[in-house]
């Protein structure tokens, strides 16, 4: 008997309840995403069963243990790249999509050309800052961890390969936008009048479909996540990839977070989230456990740490924190706003004595999480490891961030291989792993994309 009857909506959000067939369609879509990443990874990494399962379809047995994995909401890559002072400024801004994956080393160079903008907040939690027009003081910061797929489903289509179709209810979508973002939202604002394409040729929304990059989810407000790596599908994919055991180029079993993600290539090395999600899942898989994501599969704000927060009237600040959607420990939308009766703004609050001038100061206090389940088996699974698909690189003379090239590529001039000989278990050597990986990579049809929107890899 399966462990789960049906995948529920993130945080059991109720918007689909009144749409006939929508809840079933959501379950089928989430289940299909699991099935697809499992099939893809089994194909990519060899035929042995993946230690990742789709709970409605498979019961691995054993003792199920929940493992919450938490990370900080402020984008670490920006901290690494620009330092905290500049990162706080930049993280509040929208960035052009052309910059995604290759941000400029110049912290002032964030200009876009095609007007497709996204929030560069790549830790599965994004925010929008509203300021007083006269003083520029912050009056509200709204945070969201809602995946774009949920909103696309409400429209009726989650694009992908294959597309996932839903009954949808565009009026309900419009109502939700009006409730959460602005009463001025029009349905046409949410639909792409033409293909939304940036100057790099990347398609971000198809004509006639829901446009996650609409003005009410970028310049004028926030409805849900829209940073390219922030999606439910990416979460499911990362979980699957991280159950695979990897070796470094010498065949030593990789075990530590940085070396693992750098050589496996399963996420963003410079983030808070991906290295720790990957390493946490991988550690459970190395124990021989089966792993999945707990229902409802989602990305959540766990809590906000209010230590050191102070209001000018010295009264408690709990009434300035509003969980708008979700519940404590499973928060999907939260706003920070001072009740009008108190007579001051968010910008007048202080954290450790410093006035709040950027949304990122609040993000630093927010913990984001997902919850995994590990099934500890009486007879642990020992899946053979695979070699490295990637090679982490670092500029040794300006070592702020870690980059990567394919395992088959040489280290570019001016760079050094990062984590060389590190993050492995000395006693666990699998010299055959790299050769097996290379053979799989050379096999026909090996160029399998990950689940994606419009063909774009989602890490």
């Amino acid at each position, binding site marked *: 008997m399966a462990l789960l009857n049906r995948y529920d909506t993130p945080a059991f959000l109720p918007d689909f309840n009144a749409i006939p067939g929508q809840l079933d369609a959501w379950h089928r879509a989430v289940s299909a995403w699991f099935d697809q990443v499992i099939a893809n990874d089994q194909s990519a990494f060899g035929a042995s069963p993946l230690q990742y399962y789709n709970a409605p379809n498979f019961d691995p047995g054993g*003792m199920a*243990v*929940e*493992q*919450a*994995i*938490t*990370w*900080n909401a402020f984008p*670490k890559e920006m901290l690494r790249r620009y330092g905290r002072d500049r990162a706080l400024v930049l993280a509040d801004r929208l960035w052009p999509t052309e910059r995604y994956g290759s941000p400029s080393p110049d912290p002032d160079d964030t200009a876009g050309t095609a007007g497709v903008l996204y929030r560069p907040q790549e830790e599965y939690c994004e925010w929008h800052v509203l300021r007083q027009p006269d003083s520029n003081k912050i009056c509200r910061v709204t945070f969201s961890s809602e995946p774009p797929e949920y909103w696309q489903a409400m429209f009726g289509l989650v694009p992908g390969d294959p597309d996932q179709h839903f009954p949808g209810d565009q009026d309900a979508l419009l109502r939700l936008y009006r409730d959460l973002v602005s009463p001025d939202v029009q349905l046409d604002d949410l639909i792409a009048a033409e293909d939304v394409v940036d100057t790099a040729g990347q398609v971000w929304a198809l004509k006639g479909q829901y446009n996650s990059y609409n003005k009410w989810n970028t310049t004028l407000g926030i409805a849900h996540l829209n940073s390219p790596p922030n999606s439910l599908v990416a979460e499911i994919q990362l979980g699957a990839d991280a159950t695979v055991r990897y070796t470094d180029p010498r065949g030593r079993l990789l*075990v*530590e*977070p*940085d070396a693992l993600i750098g050589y496996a290539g399963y996420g963003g*090395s*410079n*983030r*808070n989230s991906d*290295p*720790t*999600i*990957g*390493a*946490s899942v991988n*550690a*459970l898989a190395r*124990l021989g456990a089966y792993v999945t994501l707990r229902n409802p599969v989602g990305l959540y704000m766990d*809590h906000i*740490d209010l*230590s*050191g927060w*102070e209001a000018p009237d010295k009264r408690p600040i*709990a009434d300035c924190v509003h969980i708008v959607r979700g519940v404590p420990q499973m928060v999907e939308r939260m706003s920070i706003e001072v009740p009008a009766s108190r007579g001051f703004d968010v910008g007048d609050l202080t*954290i*450790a*004595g*410093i006035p709040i001038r950027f949304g990122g100061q609040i993000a630093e206090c927010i*913990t984001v*999480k997902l919850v995994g389940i*590990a099934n*500890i088996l009486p007879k642990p699974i020992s899946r053979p490891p695979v070699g490295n698909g990637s090679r982490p690189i*670092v500029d*040794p003379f300006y*070592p*702020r*961030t*870690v980059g990567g090239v394919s395992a088959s590529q040489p280290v570019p*001039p*001016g*760079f*050094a291989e*990062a*984590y*060389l*000989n*590190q*993050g492995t*278990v*000395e*006693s666990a050597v699998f010299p055959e792993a790299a050769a097996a990986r290379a053979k799989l990579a050379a096999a026909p049809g090996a160029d399998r994309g990950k689940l994606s929107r419009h063909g774009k890899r989602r890490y």
Partner: protein
Amino acid sequence: MSETQATTSMQAETPEPVLPMSDIQGIAVPGFLKPHQTLVGVSTPNDPGAVVAFKEFLRGLAGEISTAAETLADRRRFRVAKAAAGPKPPAAKALLGIGFTFQGLQKLTPGAVSLPSEAFRQGLAARSAFLGDPADPADEGNPKNWKVGAPGRDIDVLFIVAGDTRAAVDERAAALAGRIEKAGLQVVYNENGDVREDLPGHEQFGFDDGVSQPGIRGRASDDPNDFVTTRHIAVSAQPERSLFGYPGQDLVWPGVLVLGHPATSPDPLIPGLPSPAVPEWSRNGSYLVFRRLRQDVGLFWRTMRQEAARLAALPGFEDITDVVLASRIVGRWPSGAPVNRVPLADDPDLGAQPLANNHFRFDSDASAIPLQSGYVDKFPQSKADPAGVTCPWAAHIRKVNTRDSGSDTGGRDSSYARRLMRVGVAFGKPLADRYAEPEDDPGHGERGLLFLGIQASIDDQFEFLTARWMGDPSRPKMPGGHDLLVGQNDAPGEGRQRRCVIFGAGVQQASVATDAPWIIPTGGGYFFVPSIAALRDVLGR
């Protein structure tokens, strides 16, 4: 040499910088790790004449502050003497360190405002709420009630006198006191800290302290083997040789502790960008956090006894005792033996063996590392414990050093960048009956820790560890809870209750919760520890 050759060579050799040992204070590098200390807090009037006298005093003192070179030489002499047979030589002269609060620095140089640390500029008392300290003005732990560093009673300068014997420290402290008096400065705080006579090296709850200190990646001279932190791993064992001093002792780039030197990069073997030395005279300086923590030993152990008795009624916890519970909360047994290596009972031999007592992993099975001395670590090796079943994620040692695990701030560099060097010592007489009620305590509860921590950034190291990891129930990782040993909880509506998760023999989860305040902050301050040159040529001029 081509660029490619240079980078290849860098990877292979992990070169380490030669540190300016005659300019860095010894309290910062290699750190005073002395069993006896006296802390002297001094204040000076803010009038021009007094400031001139203050500067003259500092100028005269600059040559007497213990340098890194002197402190390292002292440590090496001590180790040789300890290892040698026969009568011990007389105790060396006590070491002397000096640090300034922001207020004190401002009296000496207008450039003080340029130091980029917001925490330092505000001071410990102002940041107390952020650290989770009691907000109730009536609470003993509220800054208003502190014995040192209370608002309005700030100190300008903290002297740290540290030595191998109480007599040596007293002698140097007395000489210092005479000079302070002569300079017209006022001593506003004076306290002795001494290692426990009954359990040397153990803090007042009874646990071996300071087992896990970071080592410094750097050399004391041009000699390629003149490492500031002694290396114990066999040369052939790479990368471990480049990663650790003692097995498990992380080597951090000097910029983690000293300003103006390479700090952590994403790859621990590649030097990161230098920690900022702004203004320039702050180069070779450090920050010192002093925190006077009173420990209510009776309350701690009575709570452990009571909670252990409650837990023992639960399936999977039948064998739990107060010592077992307390050891889970610390992450080490009283001897210092890590619970990950010996989950069922303390092993004093392991606790006493520095070549083994800090060698363990959290996420993977560990194995012995070849050592230079040929010593073979035959104690049980730690087993993978990613979920904190053996060593809970809320355990103190796991909260402040995530080792090979990921954390809420990513990979291993997050933990490297947070490390600090602890150079403090216990104060007060130990409590003979650890369960004693207050009325049966001859010391009236006056015992604890004079916590002294060296770092390059108070904001990113001490404060981050305290507020973001020890005081947060879900960071750095779950299933966790608060650091019950040292952490505080000031979340609204939670009544300062701290709670954590521990596991039973059958992986049953149980929660431990308490609002008992057995760690009470009773004073301290944030200090800048200048280089010798800055003391002589900037602050003393």
